[in-house]
Each structure stands twice: as structure tokens, then as C-alpha cells.
């Protein structure tokens, strides 16, 4: 076998050629898979939204960010409309208190803040215990459907809330509640800001209505504060 000698020039040239060829090949593959990967991600997001706000696959989805009242957290909202009619808001929320850290949750609210449906997007919880927060594994999270967090305390029963925790996975249940609660707080903040925006737009002669909205939003805040 006529192996090349390991001279400095030979080694440098070989490594240069090998890495250059690899880079070209990778660039080519990256470019040709960029589109499909983007489509797959968009499709995945659409499916996730469709689970929590049924009808999202046929309607239009508008994405926007909402800052929480303290301005430290940012949540992604998806407003779903179908033929101009509001179907609901899907909120991509999270908690860092899971048994294995970060969990990501998608929850759908109707315009009054009632939970339409909810599901886990990503988690690293224990298979067989904490992963029961996911719809694929158990129907545990269906207990939130149709509940308004204004009356339904998003805390496990052990902590004085209204949520049945998963047996042997209280930490995962708590984290899930934390994520939903964060989404609801964001939703309340969004509602208030959009109400006040309406006020800004309205004319001077609708001052009384203006006051009404103010009252409404403060009562909203109160409800939000009591949970």
C-alpha cells in the first residue's frame, strides 16, 4: 500500500481537502432540506394549535408576543380566526419547575379566558409517571377543559387548589399548573392592554363607555389577583 508520508504539507493539504469537501456537501444538504424542515416545523405548530383551539387548521393564525405585567416573561400568543370570527387564543407557555426541568405547554383560551383545551409540547418528565401530563399517554389534562382559571384554582389539591395531581408525579402536576397559570396571567394582561387600546382609539364623547371599560379591566385584574 502506497501510503502518503506524514509530512507537514501532506497533512495540511489532506485535512484542508477533507474539510472543504465536507463543508460543500453539508452546505448542499442544508440548503435542500431547509424548506422541508421549515414546513415540518410549521405543520407541527399548526397541529399543536389545532389541538387546543379546534378549527385552527381551516382558519387563519396570527402570531404575536405578550409581555407579562412585570415585564419579565414573554409568551407567544396565536390568535385563531375563521372567516373573521374569533375562535380563541392559543398560548405557548412553559414552566421551569418540572421534575426534569423545562416543560413547554400549549393552552387554548376562548375570549373569556375559559380553557378550551391544553397539551404538552415538550417535556423530559419520567416516562410512566410525569409524562401523563401529555395527551398521548393519559387523559389527565382533560380535567382543565371548560374551566375558567378565574374560579378554578390552578394548584394541586395538596397546595389548596382544585387540580387532581397525577399519582406519584406531584412535581410534574405542579409544573403543569404553573405553566397554565403563567399562560392565564399573560392572557389577563393581554386582555387588559387590548381593552385599554380600544379606549385610546375611541372618541372623546364615549367617555362613559371609556369608564366602563376601565371598571371592567380592573375587575378582571381583581379576579386575576384572587387566584
Amino acid at each position, binding site marked *: *500500500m502506497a*501510503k502518503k508520508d506524514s509530512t507537514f504539507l501532506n497533512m495540511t493539504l489532506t485535512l484542508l481537502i477533507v474539510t472543504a469537501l465536507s463543508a460543500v456537501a453539508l452546505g448542499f444538504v442544508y440548503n435542500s*432540506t431547509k424548506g*422541508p424542515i421549515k414546513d415540518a416545523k410549521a405543520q407541527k405548530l399548526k397541529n399543536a394549535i389545532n389541538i387546543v383551539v379546534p378549527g385552527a387548521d381551516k382558519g387563519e393564525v396570527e402570531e404575536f408576543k405578550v409581555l407579562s405585567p412585570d415585564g419579565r416573561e414573554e409568551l407567544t400568543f396565536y390568535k385563531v380566526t375563521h372567516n373573521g370570527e374569533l375562535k380563541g387564543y392559543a398560548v405557548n407557555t412553559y414552566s421551569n419547575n418540572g421534575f426534569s426541568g423545562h416543560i413547554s405547554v400549549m393552552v387554548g383560551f376562548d375570549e373569556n379566558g375559559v380553557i378550551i383545551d391544553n397539551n404538552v409540547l415538550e417535556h423530559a418528565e419520567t*416516562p*410512566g*409517571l410525569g409524562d401523563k401530563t401529555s395527551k398521548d399517554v393519559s387523559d389527565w389534562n382533560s380535567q382543565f377543559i371548560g374551566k375558567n382559571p378565574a374560579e378554578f384554582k390552578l394548584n394541586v389539591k395538596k397546595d389548596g387548589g382544585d387540580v387532581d395531581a397525577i399519582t406519584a408525579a406531584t412535581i410534574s402536576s405542579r409544573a403543569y399548573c404553573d405553566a397554565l397559570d403563567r399562560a392565564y396571567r399573560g392572557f389577563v394582561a393581554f386582555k387588559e392592554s387590548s381593552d385599554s387600546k380600544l379606549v385610546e382609539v375611541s372618541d372623546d364623547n364615549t367617555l362613559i363607555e371609556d369608564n366602563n371599560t376601565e371598571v371592567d379591566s380592573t375587575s378582571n385584574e381583581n379576579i386575576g389577583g384572587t387566584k
Partner: protein
Amino acid sequence: MNQWKNFTKGFIKENPVFILLLGLCPTLGVTTSAINGLGMGLATTFVLLMSNTVISLIKNVIPNKVRIPSFIVIIASFVTIVDLVMAAYVPALHAQLGLFIPLIVVNCIVLGRAEAFASKNTVLSSMIDGLGMGLGFAFALTILGAVRELLGSYAIFGYKLINTDGMLVFVLAPGAFIGLAYLVAIVRRINK
């Protein structure tokens, strides 16, 4: 060397998982279900086949002292290609295997075959060796995944046999060690 023997040695006689005990990180990590094991095995097979082929093609122009870095760059490129292609066309499986696909780069089997076989043999033998070893790896992962899925959730390839929770320990990490140990013992007994 007899090519048929070269191909079949990866299944039992020199099975990467059961006999050589190489690449145990993905073996223990992904085999929570049979389909995960199969997906991981096939991804590794592709990388093994391609890297073995390319390395045996260029073995004579690579200076001895830089052969390992060159091999690693070639292997890493193929792994990245697999990673991108899987993300594009099988996103569900890609999400399941997640972290373990990039880790094929450091899977000892791939570099092991490149160094021990492909850099010393002809292109055809290297291709057959890569394919046999890869399929042997896929075979072992599928068996281990099937055992763990069967005991851990009473299901096989996602099809539920008994509708209750299984033995949780087999889904968790300790179950991987227990399952693998019994399979290694059985294979050694057969080989005797």
C-alpha cells in the same frame, strides 16, 4: 474473505452490542420502544455504510498521522446529513431520537469499523462490513427495544397488547441495563 460471512458476522458472531459491547450510550438511551431502536439502528447503519465506503476509497491518500481527524470529519458530515434529512422528512421520529442522532458521531462502532476494517480492506468488503455491522446494531437495538416495550408498557411497535401500565422499571434507565444484561447472557449461551 468470504463476503457472506463478512456480512453475517455483525448479527451474532461479532454483534456490536451483544458481543463487542460498543456504542452502549445510544443502545441504553433510545431503546424505550422497538420503533425507536429500529430508527436509531437504521440511522447508524446508513452512517456506517457511507463512512466505511468513503474511508476505504480514500485510505491510500490519507497520511497516517491525520487519519483519525479525517475519519471523524467524514463521519460527522454523514451524521449531520442524516440529522438534517430526518428532521425534514420524519420529524416525529427525529423528535423522539432527538439528542442521540448527533451522538452517532462519537459512537465507537462507527470509528471502530473505520479504523479496524475500512482503512485496511477493499471498498466492497468495507461496504458489506458496514452494512452487516449496521444491521446487526439495528437488530440488537430493535430486540432490546421490543423487550423493554413489551415488559414496560405491554405493547409492541406501539400496538398495545394489554391495556394497563407495565413494569415501569423497564421503561426507565435501570430496565435498559437489566434487559441488555439478560440479552447478552442469552447470546453468549447461543454462541458457545
